[in-house]
């Protein structure tokens, strides 16, 4: 029955799927969201590493969610609120000291003064530079990527809005932006700061959720994009959803339903059907079909291509689709802790944001070297958060929940299998944390590991990549995920890509979903 009235199918109830569905429903479409998991929410859906402990999903902060999304969907009305600690990043060092990056750059600078006057003086200026370039990237993130076949490419790329935004930067910052974007994050920080204890932690921002090292061209752009449209600046954001990322998932789901979106969980789309050059609908695992003239896929691009009939896609495009780079290299570890870990130089205020283990450029680079050889890093880069510090509802009284990003944990292991390595990830994480938070091991009551392979199986992230497609310069803006398929319409009329694999990419921003709907409504 419903199949008749439905005119829009959204594949995947992740944040982008829910945001796109809600926006399309608001525009008068009859939308059904098909989600293979038991619940909507995608990577925002967390877990319980132990009774009474509520861990976030694959990401643990939500500072990049577009304010416009929060406003348009009235997420507050659906119970969404955030916690914004004063601290952004706390970086314990092997020597027992630590560097803290505050929301207030001058406070960071003042604390740095004791270590290096040079870096203290440089920090505020660097923070401003990051903000200036990021403010330009914020325009890029909302922009519809140009059509490489457009009459004047130069104009299209430097087109009106963007061009203006770019010129508004002024010549000096303009040059800085052009220079910084293709840089390696290690270069970006090395030429400004002299302390490894400042360089290393900042570098982690360029490599987290990627398979790249600190010396990889384009990692500066990862850092800068992470600060675009937020007040992240040099240190990045540290914003938590009250009640955990699940609370955001609940709010998004409720908002979509309030707009009349039909939610069908445990509905696994196994094929996207096309007729001639148009999309016709989708086929579900149990064989039933849903017809619709408009199909919006928030599955990763490689998966989306694989859902299509290879013959209809054609050999060249299929080859290109299979070559979209989705090298997952991030694992997650959630710890149920008996108490607050004693991180070097830490106190509850300093530990309330992101705690970063990446004490030097070389440490970050070495950790990521492992990807190249298909090994697990023995000295990983870690980003930990202890959301229970600011949100006691996430752990039993007096205890703490700690969420950890672990890199590098490449999806493609050469000499072992993920079945064998899962526990190992936890052990390495504990061993590493012990060095920066003595006594950490004794606090661990329980832990759970989510490997890239788990991510692929649980969240249908091909290659186990949280950002769907690697955020390298080769899968950026007008060619994310593929040149000529970056304007959300994907391969067939009526089929759109609206997930993290599309511009502006991964992270809890709502950008792809929002941009895609703008284009869809224009095309209709």
């Amino acid at each position: 029955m419903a199949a008749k009235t439905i005119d829009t199918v959204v594949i995947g109830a992740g944040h982008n799927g829910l945001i796109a569905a809600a926006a399309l429903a608001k525009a008068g479409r009859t939308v059904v969201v098909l989600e293979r998991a038991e619940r909507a929410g995608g990577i925002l859906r967390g877990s319980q590493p132990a009774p009474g402990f509520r861990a976030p999903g694959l990401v643990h902060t939500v500072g990049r969610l577009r304010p416009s999304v929060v406003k348009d969907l009235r997420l507050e009305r659906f119970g969404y609120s955030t916690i914004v600690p004063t601290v952004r990043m706390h970086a314990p060092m092997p020597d027992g000291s630590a560097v803290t990056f505050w929301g207030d750059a001058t406070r960071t600078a003042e604390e740095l003064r004791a270590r290096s006057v040079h870096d203290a003086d440089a920090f505020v200026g660097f923070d401003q530079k990051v903000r200036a370039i990021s403010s330009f990237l914020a325009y890029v993130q909302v922009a519809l990527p140009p059509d490489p076949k457009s009459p004047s490419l130069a104009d299209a790329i430097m087109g009106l809005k963007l061009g203006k935004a770019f010129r508004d930067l002024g010549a000096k910052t303009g040059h800085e932006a052009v220079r910084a974007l293709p840089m390696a994050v290690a270069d970006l920080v090395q030429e400004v700061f002299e302390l490894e204890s400042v360089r290393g932690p900042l570098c982690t921002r360029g490599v987290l959720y990627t398979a790249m090292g600190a010396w990889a061209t384009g990692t500066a752009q990862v850092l800068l994009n992470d600060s675009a449209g937020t007040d992240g600046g040099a240190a990045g954001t540290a914003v938590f959803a009250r009640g955990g990322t699940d609370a955001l998932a609940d709010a998004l789901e409720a908002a979509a339903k309030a707009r009349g979106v039909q939610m069908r969980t445990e509905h696994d789309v196994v094929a996207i059907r096309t007729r001639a050059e148009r999309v016709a609908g989708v086929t579900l695992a149990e064989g039933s079909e849903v017809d619709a003239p408009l199909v919006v896929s928030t599955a990763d691009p490689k998966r989306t291509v694989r859902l299509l009939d290879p013959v209809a896609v054609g050999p060249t495009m299929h080859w290109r689709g299979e070559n979209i780079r989705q090298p997952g290299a991030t694992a997650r570890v959630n710890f149920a802790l008996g108490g607050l870990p004693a991180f070097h130089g830490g106190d509850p205020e300093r530990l309330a944001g992101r705690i970063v283990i990446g004490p030097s450029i070389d440490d970050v680079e070495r950790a990521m070297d492992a990807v190249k050889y298909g090994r697990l890093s023995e000295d990983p880069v870690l980003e930990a958060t202890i959301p229970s510090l600011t949100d006691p509802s996430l752990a039993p009284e007096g205890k703490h929940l700690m969420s950890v990003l672990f890199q590098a944990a490449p999806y493609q292991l050469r000499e072992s299998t993920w079945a064998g390595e899962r526990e190992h990830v936890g052990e390495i994480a504990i061993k590493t944390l012990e060095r920066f938070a003595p006594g950490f091991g004794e606090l661990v009551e329980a832990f759970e590991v989510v490997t890239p392979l788990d991510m692929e199986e649980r969240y249908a992230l091909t290659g186990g990549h949280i950002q769907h497609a690697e955020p390298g310069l080769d899968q950026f803006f007008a060619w994310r995920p593929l040149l000529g398929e970056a304007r959300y319409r994907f391969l067939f009329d009526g089929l759109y890509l609206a997930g993290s694999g599309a511009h502006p990419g991964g992270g809890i921003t709502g950008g792809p979903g929002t941009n895609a709907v703008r284009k869809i409504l224009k095309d209709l």
Partner: protein
Amino acid sequence: MAKRYDAVVIGGGHNGLVNAAYLARSGLKVLVLERRHILGGATLTEEIVPGFRFSVFSYVVSLLRPEIIRELQLPKHGLEILPLDGTITPLDDDYLWRVNDHGKTIRELRRWSLNDAEAYEEYGPLMAEMGRFIKPILSVPPPDPAKLSPGEWLPLTPLAKQFRDLPRRLQTTFIQLMTMSAADFLDQWFETESLKATMSASGIIGTFQGPRSPGTAYVLLHHYMGEIDGAFRAWGIPRGGTGAIAYAIAGAALAAGAEIRTEAPVARIRTQGGRATGVVLESGEEIEANVVMSSLDSRWTFIKLLDDSVLDPSFKREVLRYKYRGSSGKVNLALDGLPELACKPGKGEWLRGAISFSPSIDYIEHAYDDAKYGRPSARPYIDMIIPTLVDPSMAPPGNHVMSCFVQYAPYHLADGEIWDDAKREAFGQNVIDTIEERFPDIRRHIVGHQFITPKDIEDITGLSEGNIFQGELSLEQLFFNRPVPGWSRYRTPVRDLWMCGSATHPGGGIMGAPGRISALEYLKEKRKGRRAA
């Protein structure tokens, strides 16, 4: 009373000489000043071991712009380029040997992988097409992105149009080449490790990056842009070594009326009221000129030769933060006979081309890892040629010279250590050990050697930090960011001081394009000025 010239060119390397030749041809009174007793800079042939002439630094030619060969009539001035045929990659008990004979190469690849043999048939033409598309970039001065006035983009408009009109597949390839790592790019096509490694090696030569570093793919293209008699993908060596190129260009410059002085090191560039008025030699001699053309890198030009007071602090900061990071060394060997490869004994034609020590991507990546952490590679990538097999004049009869380009040898060593004689010796011996693994009899044949570290490259040629491209060819230092962001068009903040070396667009390699384009730019501006006046 100081001598007066229309133009003084600092540096007698190939770009300085090309620049001088073009200025002289237009009737300008030009003087070239070379610090050393010999011309060529890094394009240098020198008899290091008696009777053995080495192409000391750069060792092959492929990118030398054909319009320069034509316009300067270099063959008339003695330039003769002998083609190098093929590349062999020695492996433990096998080898990969590609030659210019396409059919032969395909048969060889079939030995390894039918897929790769097939892909190779598609890959070559595709890359050649890309090369033809990208070549225009090498001949236009880059635009200034922060201006974006139509005028600025004009030179590129045809390019944008060409790009738009390219088939989607070529557009994609272009973007990928500009942004991907050589390894990722090649992984799309090939599966044979030794093939991918040997191809990707061209992406890392002279850079401080590894085959898995994003941005290394585009150099793969250079191979297909190399031209000898218009033939794509051709590599060769000049008869008499790469120094012969410099002397052919010098011949053209002299014929056009330029003066060239060697052993005339410039101490500083004279300025007056913010404009360059000439140079002062270390001897104290003063030379006046309407324009000073520096073929040196930006660090030399602005930090060493210019008086601090004429530089705007923010510009100076840009110059100082420009990355050099030499990453390569050279080992030149004098041999009393031809060594044999363990994996392919005999003295056949496979030794006449390039011999590439690049068995796998991991091999090169490991070599890079060492350098990243400040150590010379334990097992370096070596790009070896034996010039005497194509040009016997380089050594006494029956003897040979072996040229080994070695990566990586980082200029900056770990823990602040510096290159000294002991480290140079260790570096050289380690390279010979690496060679011995493929040429077991190499040590028996060595009668003389020259070990060159990045520090030596800096000391001998003046290339800062021994970077053979006058600046790291990383994406953010290309095109409109060479040699200093905002000053990509050969001019400098100091009026009448221009740059014309590899530091400027389109960059390094024995290409000559920077020297030529800068000269033409200057002449154009001069004409404008005259019209204005």
